[in-house]
């Protein structure tokens, strides 16, 4: 048996591998191994070094990203076209690395104090980031699936991190059950798509979906089932039920990570599938996405208005934000090729902006809750009097999330809006109106937090300053600076997003 296998392998030639194109992932993998060894070979009291190594590794992986960005020539295509390193993937990999780095910064004190298993925490975080980087290059159903699981499975464990607390394990269980169920549905959809098109490559699927198979009802089932798996990840209504409970029960740094990085990864997969694979049946995707986007925005905002716990409020706010990002997909394929470009670049841009801003908001939440020890919004009363820097930073983030100029969120939202209206379809206008109304509703709760911070009295009269550890100062600092810089020079992110677009929308 073995002999025949070896004999057959005689003629095997290893395909050329472009190691440079793989370098960012390899650096993250190497960091993973280093952190594992640190965890195994150090004493309990020096485990904190794991967080330093993880942070350095994530920053180090940006170096090959930069060298790849300035490299000339065609995008590298590896493993039979299943793994493509183009500008789209580079921009998103940078997003995941930065999000991962800020997550390490906000985690380091929280996880070291009181919690347990410091080494494993960073291992899982790195594994998940590795999956996210892979999914932004994946151009093949198998690669997308494996990368998706690579990023999901560690997050199930991270969500259940406080395993000795009842709410902690409940958070993990809800996330896990809905997650694997959605994966199952997604796989069933993928199997139907594969059956009809005979290939797992997105480019091949894209070529066949417009043909005979695309007209079969089963193709519609395949497309919708496949998208459902990722819509769960981005917590679109009606697949959002896990989000508030998981966000509340998980450690807050994990919540920050889930609400930005994991959500962005879901969107990346949706973008690739819709633009490269299912573009030929965009008429199926449009109404589906329209209903989901409007429902997601409205339900998220309405429930967020009633929340008294800041983490839960941000959970529903992130549901509503996912709705905003989905809106442009309700006009995909309608209008000119130009519109498709604009849809893609507005979505990528909103993802970049949302990630930075939401991470910053969570960094402030973590800093404040270190002192108040409570998640209630009422406990934020009078924050400005004793922690003016934190209060002002939070105000910047809230303005950005609400979309008030000149904060960066305004420009990003405006781009989404233009993309939708430009398509000149009824669905597009309806989606635009729903988006405008929801932007106003969302101001209700964002400004509510501001009023508490600036106008209300300090609840217990205790006005000792908040002591914020250096790592958290760095996290808040990085995100505030990024928010302000991009707010005044929105062209910067716009350019990045345009680069990203250029790469993907040329799949046609």
């Amino acid at each position, binding site marked *: 048996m073995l002999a025949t296998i070896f004999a057959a392998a005689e003629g095997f030639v290893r395909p050329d591998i472009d190691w440079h194109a793989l370098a960012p992932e390899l650096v993250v993998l190497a960091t993973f191994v280093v952190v594992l060894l640190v965890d195994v070979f150090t004493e309990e009291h020096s485990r904190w070094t794991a967080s330093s190594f993880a942070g350095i590794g994530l920053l180090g992986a940006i170096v090959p990203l930069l060298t790849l960005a300035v490299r000339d020539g065609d995008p590298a295509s590896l493993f039979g076209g299943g793994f493509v390193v183009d500008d789209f993937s580079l921009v998103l990999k940078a997003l995941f690395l930065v999000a991962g780095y800020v997550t390490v910064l906000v985690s380091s004190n929280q996880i070291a104090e009181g919690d347990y298993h410091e080494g494993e925490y960073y291992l899982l975080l790195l594994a998940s980031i590795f999956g996210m980087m892979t999914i932004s290059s994946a151009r093949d159903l198998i690669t997308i699936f494996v990368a998706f699981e690579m990023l999901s499975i560690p997050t*199930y464990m991270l969500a259940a991190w406080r395993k000795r607390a009842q709410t902690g*394990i409940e958070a993990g269980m809800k996330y896990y059950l809905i997650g694997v169920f959605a994966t199952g549905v997604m796989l069933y959809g993928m*199997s139907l798509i594969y059956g009809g098109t005979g290939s797992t490559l997105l480019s091949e699927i894209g070529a066949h979906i417009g043909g005979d198979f695309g007209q079969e009802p089963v193709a519609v089932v395949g497309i919708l089932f496949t998208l459902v798996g990722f819509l769960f990840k981005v917590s679109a209504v009606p697949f959002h039920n896990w989000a508030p409970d998981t966000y509340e029960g998980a450690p807050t740094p994990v919540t920050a990570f889930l609400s930005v990085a994991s959500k962005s990864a879901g969107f990346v997969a949706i973008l690739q599938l819709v633009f490269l694979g299912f573009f030929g049946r965009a008429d199926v995707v449009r109404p589906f996405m329209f209903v989901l986007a409007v429902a997601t925005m409205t339900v998220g905002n309405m429930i967020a208005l009633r929340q008294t716990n800041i983490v839960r409020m941000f959970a529903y706010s992130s549901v509503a934000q996912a709705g905003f990002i989905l809106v442009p997909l309700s006009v995909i394929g309608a209008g000119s090729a130009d519109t498709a470009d604009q849809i893609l670049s507005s979505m990528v841009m909103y993802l970049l902006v949302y990630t930075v801003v939401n991470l910053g908001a969570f960094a402030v939440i973590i800093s404040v809750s270190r002192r108040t020890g409570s998640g209630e919004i009422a406990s934020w009363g009078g924050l400005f009097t004793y922690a003016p820097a934190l209060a002002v930073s939070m105000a910047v983030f809230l303005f950005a999330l609400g979309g008030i100029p000149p904060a960066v969120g305004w420009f990003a939202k405006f781009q989404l809006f233009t993309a939708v209206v430009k398509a000149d379809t009824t669905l597009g206008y309806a989606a635009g109106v729903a988006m405008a109304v929801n932007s106003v509703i969302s101001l209700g709760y964002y400004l509510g937090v501001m009023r508490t911070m600036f106008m209300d009295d300090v609840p217990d009269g205790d006005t000792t300053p908040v002591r914020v550890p250096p790592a958290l100062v760095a996290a808040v600092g990085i995100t505030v600076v990024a928010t302000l810089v991009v707010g005044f020079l929105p062209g910067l992110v716009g350019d990045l997003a345009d680069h990203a677009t250029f790469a993907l929308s040329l799949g046609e």
Partner: protein
Amino acid sequence: MLLNQFLILAAILFCTGVYGVISRRNGVLVLMSIELILNSVNINLVAFSAMNDSISGQVFALFVIAVAAAEVGVGLAIVLAIFRNYRTVDIDEVDLMKG
């Protein structure tokens, strides 16, 4: 055609799995229902692979099997932790936070 029978079997398995996930309250049984869904996918993939005469469906099925093992490993660990905290594996009782 033989393919139809495989697809019908897979569809039945899939529906059984979905029904199980929705109706079962025991955590372990929910995990088993999820396994049913994943196996229906495998049947589909292998059947389509034979029909399309392409190997990638079988490769896909292998990956699904490997990942399913990892998923269930995590799932059982979570169910075990639930049992330690709540003294039950009834997932309906694990509902302190109201979504």
